[in-house]
């Protein structure tokens, strides 16, 4: 098979799997899960073949043509796509295998695995997309698969509400995204990524509005403030789904999309993006501190890390100097892309690991999710404990683990480009190690605090093998040799953009990240004791309450908007529609006379002639009105 054929096969495979499951295997959950997992194996194999192979290509096919508008579906396979493809393939496979164990007793397994396959199809479409219209198509489709999977336990009203919220909030982001795409199309005459990049290189002027509108799409998918509200709620879905969609891949699609269109960026737009990302990183980290649900802590942590990536992208380019043989070269690299994608990669590994680890915990505790009702699980779930600990160490930036390198890259970029952002991100890192160590200690150390937790035992190989693989990746995913040797340099063009600190900067960053780590982790370790109540709430109820209020403030605002403004507005319009419009204007727009003279009753006698008469008058009046306002 040629690389192009492999790529197409990788894209089509999950669609076929989903179709087969939907049509034939609805009642055969076991077979459905096998089909879906086999598809995931095929995708992972194809993805690694493509990534490790040397071929990078572009291909496309026209899909719709009307007048001078042509929309094509195509594949742009460069190093960036290769990196994303490898992540989706590998994490996807881990989650599929994990689901075999986790969802084994679920009554709707077929729907679940069909949904996973649809998701893989949609996500791969985003990875491959060579133009913005195609990206939008798959963008909407991942939104749909996310809706489907969040709504998996659909008898729970909370799941139904969460899935609805996720889709609608994403649609709000897509409103801007589509506007941006359409504007782009009108501006450049194409939305093909390569063609647009050429036009920009050729000196086409840029405005901040287009990239910012496109960024709206990323704000929805990657859950940036103020469109972040759907992600914590999305934890209603099964835990493997949270790992795959709401931590490792789909929510990272926003960052991937930004990297795809980085050539459209102008400083003003980057500035906005940077601050949105920074605000999200800080806000979400503050919210994570008060959470008691193991998945919610991880959800806010994901939000925070996504903020990190967005901020990294917004930090933009970096001037670097090379000294070679006495000659000094200065070059500008799009370091934002490098740092964001690097962190996206390591985050995909360790956050998928953490979510699957939490899945293993939840599975073992019979779906207990409250960390204050766990405790002491380290002894009962040794492998989960070991891998989860590695995941925690990676996210809080313990040296020599993946997160350490990628977070330092971002901190260095911030240090070089914007000190305020640097300070905020460093403080966020303190919070990160604080809430992660809190979580880790409450779940795994001390004595068990509930009936369910005391019976916990490790799940089967399907649950543990993915954890082991992801743990390994969380360790080695930060090293340059991982990309050059293991991935055979297949993603070199992305990795070479990762900013690296040298000299005194290096020391500053290293010291900062170590201080930050020790501060947060130390504080959490001393503050929290294995107990069934939150130590922070007892020692400092004011602060705890404030953080809680911070968390609900957005939800309160949106709930107020939906219930009190949007719904009332709709009701009022409906009222006018029913009474005023149906009753007065059309039955007699000229018939205000009717109100005065004949009275309303005359209008309701049901006399057909009268209705026709009033109606005609109304139409004539309307027409006269419309034409009268215009020169005729």
């Amino acid at each position, binding site marked *: 098979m040629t690389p192009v054929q492999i790529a197409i096969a990788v894209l089509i495979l999950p669609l076929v799997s989903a179709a087969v499951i939907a049509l034939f295997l*609805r009642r055969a959950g076991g077979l459905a899960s096998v089909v879906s997992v086999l598809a995931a194996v095929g995708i992972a194999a194809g993805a690694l073949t493509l990534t490790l192979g040397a071929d990078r290509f572009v291909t496309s096919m*026209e899909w*719709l*043509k*009307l*007048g*001078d*508008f042509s*929309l094509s579906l195509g594949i742009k396979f460069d190093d960036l796509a290769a990196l994303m493809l490898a992540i989706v393939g590998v994490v996807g496979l881990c989650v599929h295998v994990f689901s075999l164990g986790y969802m084994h007793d679920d009554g709707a397994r077929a729907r679940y695995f069909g949904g996973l396959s649809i998701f893989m199809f949609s996500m791969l479409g985003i990875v491959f997309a060579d133009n913005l219209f195609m990206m*939008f*198509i*798959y963008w*909407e*489709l991942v939104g*749909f698969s996310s*809706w489907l999977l969040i*709504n998996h336990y*659909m*008898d*729970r*009203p909370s*799941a*139904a*509400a969460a*899935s*609805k919220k996720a*889709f*609608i909030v994403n*649609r*709000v982001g*897509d*409103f801007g995204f*589509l*506007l941006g795409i*359409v*504007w782009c*199309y*009108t501006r450049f005459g194409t939305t093909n990524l390569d063609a647009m990049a050429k036009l920009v290189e050729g000196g086409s002027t840029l405005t901040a509005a287009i990239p910012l509108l496109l960024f709206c799409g990323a704000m929805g998918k990657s859950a940036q403030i103020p469109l972040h509200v759907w992600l914590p709620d999305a934890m209603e879905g099964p835990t493997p789904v949270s790992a795959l969609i709401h931590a490792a891949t789909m929510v990272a699609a926003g960052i991937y999309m930004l990297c795809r269109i980085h050539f459209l960026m102008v400083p003003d737009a980057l500035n906005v993006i940077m601050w949105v990302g920074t605000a999200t990183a800080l806000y979400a980290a503050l919210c994570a501190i008060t959470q008691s649900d193991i998945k919610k802590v991880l959800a806010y942590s994901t939000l925070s890390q996504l903020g990190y990536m967005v901020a990294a992208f917004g930090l933009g380019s970096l001037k670097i100097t090379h000294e070679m043989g006495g000659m000094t070269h200065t070059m500008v690299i799009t370091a934002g892309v490098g740092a964001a994608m690097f962190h996206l990669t390591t985050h995909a590994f360790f956050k998928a690991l953490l979510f699957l680890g939490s899945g293993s915990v939840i599975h073992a505790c019979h779906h207990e999710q409250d960390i204050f009702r766990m405790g002491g699980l380290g002894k009962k779930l040794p492998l989960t404990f070991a891998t989860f600990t590695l995941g925690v160490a990676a996210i809080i930036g313990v040296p020599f683990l993946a997160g350490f390198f990628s977070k330092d890259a971002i901190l260095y970029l911030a240090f070089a480009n914007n000190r305020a952002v640097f300070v905020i991100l460093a403080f966020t890192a303190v919070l990160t190690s604080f809430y992660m160590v809190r979580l880790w200690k409450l779940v795994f150390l001390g004595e068990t605090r509930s009936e369910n937790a005391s019976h916990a035992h490790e799940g089967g190989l399907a649950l543990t093998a993915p954890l082991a693989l992801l743990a390994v990746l969380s360790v080695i995913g930060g090293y340059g040799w991982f990309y050059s040797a293991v991935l055979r340099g297949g993603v070199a063009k992305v990795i070479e953009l990762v900013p690296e600190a040298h000299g005194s900067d290096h020391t500053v960053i290293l010291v900062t990240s170590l201080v930050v780590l020790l501060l947060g982790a130390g504080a959490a370790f001393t503050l929290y004791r294995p107990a069934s109540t939150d130590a922070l709430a007892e020692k400092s109820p004011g602060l705890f309450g404030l953080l809680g209020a911070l968390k609900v403030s957005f939800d309160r605002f949106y709930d107020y908007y939906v219930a009190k403004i*949007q*719904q009332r507005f*709709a*009701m009022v*319009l*409906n009222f006018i*529609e029913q009474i005023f*419009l*149906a009753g007065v*204007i*059309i039955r007699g727009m000229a018939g205000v006379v009717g109100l005065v003279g004949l009275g309303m009753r005359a209008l309701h006698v*049901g006399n*057909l002639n009268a*209705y*026709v008469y009033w*109606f005609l008058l109304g*139409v004539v009046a*309307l*027409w006269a009105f*419309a034409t009268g306002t*215009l020169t*005729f």
Partner: protein
Amino acid sequence: MSLTFDPLLIAIVAPLALALAIALGLPKRWSVRLAYVAFAVPLLMALHVWYHFSDATQLGGYAFLTQYPTGLQALGISLKLGLNGISMPLFVLAGGVGFAAGLYALQSGAERLKLYLMLLLIMIGGLMGVFASVDIFYFYFFHELALIPTFIMVGIWGGRDRSYAAMKMTIYLTVGAMISLLGLIALYVKSGATSFDLIALRHHLAAHPLGETVQNNIFGLLMFGFGILVSLWPLHTWAPLGYGAAPSSAAMLHAGVLKKFGLYGLIQIAMPLLPAGLTHWAHPLAWLAVAGNVLVVGFITIAQRDLKQMIGYSSVMHMGYAFLGLATGSMLGVGGVVLLMVAHGFSVALLFLLATTVHHRTHTFTMDDMGGLAMKAPVLAAFFVAATFASIGLPGFANFWGELTIFVALWKFSPLITVLALAGVVISAIYGLRSAARIFFGQPATHFNEIAAQYPVKDLTWTEKAPALVLLVALLWVGFWPKSLSTAIDTALQPAAQTAARN
């Protein structure tokens, strides 16, 4: 292919012939059996012409042209049948929805089934005729033929408020039809042509265009006349009321197909013959559509509690997009309207069908009284969710292509209107997902619990599934492979085909 094989005529005549036979006293057993055939024949013919459209010989942009004298030649009228790239997709739509509505009616066990089938057959025959007619007189005649059974069906088999709904629908639609007839006659008289033949008229008017004022006035008549038929705001109030009361097959056929008559008339007749009129009216039309149909009606849709009313209003809202595409006057926009007409036809028909199947299980249309139906009827839930996502424009379903192309075209027409129109995308997601959640997810409401205890809920039966499947397959087919329709539309909209239709 022999000369006597005219798929268009067969598609029109087959249902009408059976309707006549039923009227003449065909026994019920045979009526029902033959009805399967009469419902299937138009669809088969439609698929036949769809498949052979690209390689059929074309004359003046029309394929499958035939002409039958009907004794009105002196007035320049004859039954001239043919399809161009705009009417072919709609012919397919009529065949598909007709078949689905027919199948659904056959299993519905309606009272006075023979009469019900007869009216439905007349409606389908009329619909096939509307889109196959090249002669404007017959185009209009077939519309009336299909319209009258609608009123009767609402009046006899309708639900709540059926007599008021039937009367209101009759008045609005008759008046709309009359105004558009006035426009058509004015067009005929003013053009000085001697024929109602659309090809000849195009020919004639390309050579002798009408004056601007005349164009503006006639276009205005057609726009409001046809506009009423397509539920242009604020002349739309018949639609939710009528559809709320109509029996499902009638609602499927009217909302799905017959309603498109107005848009079809505007695209096929008003646009190419009165280009200056369109330019003149474009902005008022676009503002009525975006502010009225999309935004106001969109919000009104959010406020609906009754499932059928909600579908009715959502359909009014989506017609706003069609008007917007039309207002752009560009090939892309108008092509998008044709795609959207087909897509909306299939999706709204599917929604009306499913609304009735939901009613059979919950004994109510009030969404708050339902809940949790997906646990008891997962296949029904899957169909409904698919139809909902189709109608809110999810890629993979036909509707997406129509909306997307209209939005792209609209930006060039007016960025501001595009922004407002796109807000509708969020609005439709709100009401679509909300209704799906209220009906199918969460816990059942008390009312539904009581009903379910009395009448155990069954999932979709095969007789219900079959017509739904026809519609869903059509939506997915066009959704995955839009070129299967867009190539024909594109050819028909090329400037050459629009103005000078020489052979």
